[in-house]
Structure formats: structure tokens, C-alpha cells
């Protein structure tokens, strides 16, 4: 063994991923032919390999890399989820990219690099590593949103996302600098110590945190920082939209949990109020604005806004119960979204991808299996028992009640009742409306596999909701 001055054991998965991504990049650049598909499969394998490396690590809490990097069971769980869901998203998108003739071989590379960014975020123990991770992740996503560069809408989505994302990065940086100015350090542990030693820096830290929080709220598209979401979801290629909807928000939520529980636990009374506003606004926007949407991707954008609202409830409640419920909820949401996007990407009408909800008309007659699968997903999304989505909501609301946030729970139920309407509309269109034009379902083995896995997760959790919940709760226990 080479004796290194600093231990790199904990970041072996990150290093593997980075080196693998660069290796694939070189292969892609040197290859004479366009080998996007091969690279995608290689990237999926790389992600899964990284996942196994991660699992083989010791998940006990340890801080390394000069205090920039923390590894604990929370980070371990989130990173595993990120890696696996990214692998799933890549598997979903291969067929789609090929069909839509998006041939850039950089696509899987960028996905890998943004995964790397998310892993850095999740393990951040310092404002610097937080920012580096966030920026790595976002920059790759900006490019992905624009990857269909010949499409005006894709380009527009990318530029919008980029400009607004830059604004949010600016907020995060500004906030970080304020925090640094007051606390004199960027390290999370040191910030917490500094604050407990000098409570009079509360106002300054609060202000810094608000900036930081607003920037992060942009990343998870919580209202009122959600404006980009529908436009970008609509404009980006569907496979990229799936990525946006499924993975990055988990990383950002995890990051939020960490900064609330570690450096800023002392400011709890302040950030709880802010999250309260964000959560309620997101739930209401998600529920009401989606009512009039005709475009599936826009609808899912509002749906994700609403879901972030529910997820925030758990963070507000705090403790292992609340945070565990949030993670649980969001993991289920990810599985449901993956399945939904899988089906949507597989469907075509007259050779073009689906955009409008009404294009699903009469799907139950021509493609009954897929229609039932989508119906299960929609029922689950709207939180109707016995689907898994119901348990997600149940645990969130239960934790809210147990924590004394009854109004939040009530508002949550109101908005989920309203939101049920638009999920249901999709089912209605599929099952009860007359078909006008023929729909084609394209089978694609990796994509169908993802859909099947997502359905298995959703139905499996009905009977056994508990193990996952215990897992998430144990993971969050390492934050305290």
C-alpha cells in the first residue's frame, strides 16, 4: 500500500466514479464511431460498481479530507439511493435518446459527473465542499437540459435553468460568505461550536442561512423558487426531465437535512418558520397550478413541486421520526416517478413522443398492461391506499401530528385531495376516453426493467412498509 498523507478510504467511491467518468470520456472522444449506447451501458455498470464499493465501506460516522468530507450512515443511504436511481435513469434514457437521435456521447458522462456532484453534496461537511458539489451537479444538469441543441425549447430550457441557477448559486455563495464572516469558519462542526459559544451572532447567521436556504430551495424547486421547474421540465428532453424529477432533489434535500441538523441546529426556531412557508406554498402551488395543465411534463413538474412540499413537512418536524418520514416519502416518490417517466417515454403517437395528457386516450384498450401500471402509479402518487404513496403520506402526516404541526397536516391533506384530481384525470383519460389516434408502445429491455422494478417497489412496500422506514430512521439517527 502506498502510504498517503491523508486517508482516502472514505472517498474511494467518488474517486472511482470520477476516474471512470474520465476514462469513458476519453474512450468516447477517441472512438471513430458514435458509441453513445455502449457508453451508457458502461456508465450504468460503473454506477452499480460504485454502489457496491460504497456498500462495502464502513458507514460509521467519520470525517476525513481535512474536515471537508463526512461519511455516515445517512450519507451512505442517500448516496446508495442516488447511485441506484441514476443507474435507473440512465437505463430509462438509452432507448429514448437513440430514438430521438440525441447522439452526443457526452450524455452518460455528464450524468456520471452530476452524480459525482451529488455524492459530494451529500457528504459535505463544509460550506466549500457543499458549494463545489452543488455546482458540479448543477453545471452538468444545465448542459443536459440543453443537450438537444437543435431544439429551440431545449435550448431555451437550458438557458433559463442556467441563468436562474446561477442566481441561486449566487445566493448560496453570498449566504456562505455572510456565515463565514460571522462564524469565522466554513466547517459545519466549527460553525455549530462557534454559535453555541457566541449566541449573539444569531442574527448574522440567520441571514446567511436564509440566503443559503433560498438557493437550496431553488434546487429542490420549492415555491416561491419553483418558477423554472415547469418550463425546464417541458423543454428538456424527456429522459433528462426524468433525471431532474427523480434524483437531484434527493441530494439537495439530504443536504438541507444535514445543514439543519449539524451547523444550524441552534437556529431551529428560525428555519422551521421559513420551511413552513416554503412547504405550504409548495403544496398549494403543486396542487392548484397543476389543475389546468395539459402537458404531461408540466403536470409532473407541478407534481414534483407539491411532493417537495410534503417532504419538507418531515424536515420541519425534525428528529428521526420526521426526517425518516421525509426520506421514506421521497424514496417512494422517486420510484413512482421513475415508473411514470418510463411509461411516458415508451409511448409514441404517430412517431412523436407524447406531450399532451389527452394523447393517452383509450390506452387501456390498446395497451391494457401499461395502462394498469400507469394507473397504479397514479393512484400511488395521489396517495390512495393501498399503494405505497399512501404510506409515504401517512408517515409524513403522522409525524406532523405527533410533532404538533396539525395545521401542516391538515393543509397537506387538503392539497393531496385537490391533487388527487389531476392524477385521476390521467386515469380517466386512459380508461374512459375514446381513442382518437393510435398509440404505440416501444419495448426496450432496460426501460421495461426499470418500470417493473418501480412497480415491485410500490407494491412490495404495501405489505412491508416498515423495513424501509426503519432503515431511513436509522440513517437519519446519525445526523444527531
Amino acid at each position, binding site marked *: 500500500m502506498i502510504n498517503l498523507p491523508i486517508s482516502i478510504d472514505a472517498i474511494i467511491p467518488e474517486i472511482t466514479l470520477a476516474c471512470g467518468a474520465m476514462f469513458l470520456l476519453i474512450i468516447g472522444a477517441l472512438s471513430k464511431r458514435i458509441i453513445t449506447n455502449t457508453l451508457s451501458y458502461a456508465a450504468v455498470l460503473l454506477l452499480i460498481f460504485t454502489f457496491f464499493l460504497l456498500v462495502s465501506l464502513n458507514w460509521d460516522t467519520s470525517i476525513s479530507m481535512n474536515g471537508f468530507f463526512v461519511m455516515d450512515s445517512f450519507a451512505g443511504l442517500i448516496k446508495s439511493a442516488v447511485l441506484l436511481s441514476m443507474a435507473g435513469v440512465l437505463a430509462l434514457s438509452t432507448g429514448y435518446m437513440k430514438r430521438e437521435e440525441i447522439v452526443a456521447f457526452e450524455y452518460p458522462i455528464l450524468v456520471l459527473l452530476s452524480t459525482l456532484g451529488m455524492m459530494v453534496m451529500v457528504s459535505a461537511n463544509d460550506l466549500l465542499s457543499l458549494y*463545489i458539489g452543488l455546482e458540479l451537479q448543477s453545471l452538468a444538469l444545465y448542459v443536459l437540459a440543453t443537450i438537444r441543441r437543435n431544439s429551440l425549447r431545449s435550448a431555451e430550457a437550458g438557458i433559463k435553468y442556467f441563468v436562474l441557477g446561477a442566481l441561486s448559486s449566487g445566493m448560496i455563495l453570498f449566504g456562505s460568505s455572510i456565515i463565514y464572516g460571522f462564524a469565522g469558519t466554513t466547517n459545519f462542526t466549527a460553525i455549530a461550536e462557534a454559535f453555541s459559544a457566541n449566541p449573539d451572532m444569531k442574527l448574522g447567521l440567520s441571514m446567511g442561512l436564509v440566503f443559503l436556504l433560498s438557493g437550496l430551495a431553488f434546487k429542490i424547486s420549492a415555491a416561491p423558487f419553483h418558477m423554472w421547474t415547469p418550463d425546464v421540465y417541458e423543454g428538456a428532453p424527456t429522459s433528462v426531465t426524468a433525471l431532474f424529477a427523480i434524483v437531484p432533489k434527493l441530494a439537495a434535500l439530504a443536504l438541507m437535512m444535514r445543514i439543519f441538523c449539524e451547523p444550524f441546529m441552534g437556529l431551529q426556531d428560525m428555519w422551521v418558520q421559513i420551511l413552513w412557508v416554503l412547504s405550504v406554498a409548495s403544496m398549494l402551488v403543486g396542487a392548484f397550478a397543476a389543475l389546468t395543465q395539459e402537458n404531461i411534463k408540466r403536470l409532473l413538474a407541478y407534481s414534483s413541486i407539491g411532493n417537495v412540499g410534503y417532504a419538507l413537512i418531515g424536515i420541519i418536524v425534525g428528529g428521526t421520526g420526521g426526517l425518516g418520514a421525509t426520506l421514506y416519502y421521497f424514496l417512494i416518490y422517486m420510484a413512482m416517478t421513475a415508473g411514470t417517466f418510463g411509461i411516458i417515454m415508451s409511448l409514441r403517437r404517430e412517431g412523436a413522443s407524447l406531450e399532451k395528457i389527452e394523447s393517452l386516450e383509450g390506452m387501456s384498450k390498446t395497451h391494457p398492461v401499461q395502462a394498469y401500471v400507469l394507473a397504479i402509479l397514479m393512484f400511488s402518487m395521489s396517495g390512495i391506499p393501498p399503494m405505497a404513496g399512501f404510506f409515504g403520506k401517512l408517515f409524513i402526516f403522522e409525524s406532523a401530528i405527533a410533532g404538533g404541526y396539525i395545521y401542516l397536516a391538515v393543509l397537506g391533506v387538503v392539497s393531496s385531495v385537490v391533487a388527487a384530481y389531476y392524477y385521476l384525470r390521467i386515469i380517466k383519460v386512459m380508461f374512459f376516453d375514446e381513442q382518437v389516434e393510435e398509440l404505440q408502445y416501444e419495448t426496450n429491455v432496460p426501460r421495461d426493467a426499470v418500470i417493473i422494478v418501480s412497480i415491485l417497489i410500490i407494491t412490495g412496500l404495501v405489505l412491508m412498509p416498515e423495513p424501509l422506514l426503519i432503515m431511513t430512521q436509522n440513517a437519519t439517527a446519525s445526523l444527531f
Partner: protein
Amino acid sequence: MLAALIFYLFAGILSLSALMVITARNPVHSVLFLILAFFNAAGLFVMLGAEFIGMLLVIVYVGAVAVLFLFVVMMLNMEFKELRKGSMRFIPVGLLLGGVLLTELVIVYQTWKINPKVLTETLGDSAAAPEVPLTNTEALGQILYTDYIYIFQGAGMILLVAMIGAIVLTLRERSGLKRQKVADQQKRQASDVLEIKKVTPGTGI
């Protein structure tokens, strides 16, 4: 006294030129004011003893970024007045918001005092520092690849992504372009391209 004077000079020009960047009508002027702002900021850094960052600002921001801006602005040749229209609507509200934010920042600044722990730590460090003080460059070099290797490499990955992004989004292989292919040229033989035909007068080919 003199230091204070120079500080206020730099700071004053910096603020003024920053203001001019966003108010100047001609975009080329804006970029020029930006360069001026960078120079003044560099001067401030030098005054702080951070000569490395000061020079970095001059070389990277002035030398590369701002000049690139200038090129872009000149090449695009856009009607900036028209572009400005959209943003003008927001000016009154924007000023109001800016004012509010500024007041709040001032209020928060009132509560600022340096974290005593930081003070003792840095002082303690400097007491233990070697006789010959390190230059900025050396000091950065010592920690950049050791203590900050993680962040440094992370930043490297960001730049890699930026590079990939720029290539993905702009590099186009255009079809129908005529390129010189020497090998093809040399392989070419008269028989491939020339055909000899006998033409009888008055008939055409």
C-alpha cells in the same frame, strides 16, 4: 493615513465603476468599466497583502474574461436598447427591493463582531510561523494540494464539466463542407476524372 486614502480611492472608484457597468448605455463602455472595477479590486487585494489574488484578478478576469466579454459584445452586434426594455420595467421595484436588502444588511452588520476564537487561532498561528514569512503563492501552494486537495480536485471536475458542456453545445460537424484531403488528392488519377470523348462537329455531346 496614506493607506486609508489609497483604500478609499480604490474603493470609491470600484463602486462608481460598478455602478457605471450597469447604467452605461453602450455595452462596450460597460465592459470597459468592468475592467476598471477589476483593476481597483486588485488594488484593494494588494493592499490587504493578498498579492496573489490581486494578480490573479488582473490576469484572469481582466486578461481573459473581460476581454472575451468585449469580443462577444462586439461580435454579436445586438440591439441592446431593445434588450434593455424588458429589464427597465423592473427598475423601480428593483430599487425598492435593493434598498430593503441594503438596510437589512446594514442592520445585520451592526451585530457583527469578529469571532474571538478565530482571532486567537490566527494570532497563535502567526506566532508559531517561521522567521521568514511565506509569500502568498508559497502559502497557497502548500495547502492547495494537501489540506484542500478535495476541494481543489472538485473544482477541477467542475471545469471539466464546463469544458465538456462548451464542446457539446457548440461543436458542430457540418456536412457539405469542402475539406482538403491530401491522401485523396494524391490517390486521384487522371482516368478517374477525365473522360475523353470524340466530338463530331455540329452535334454536341
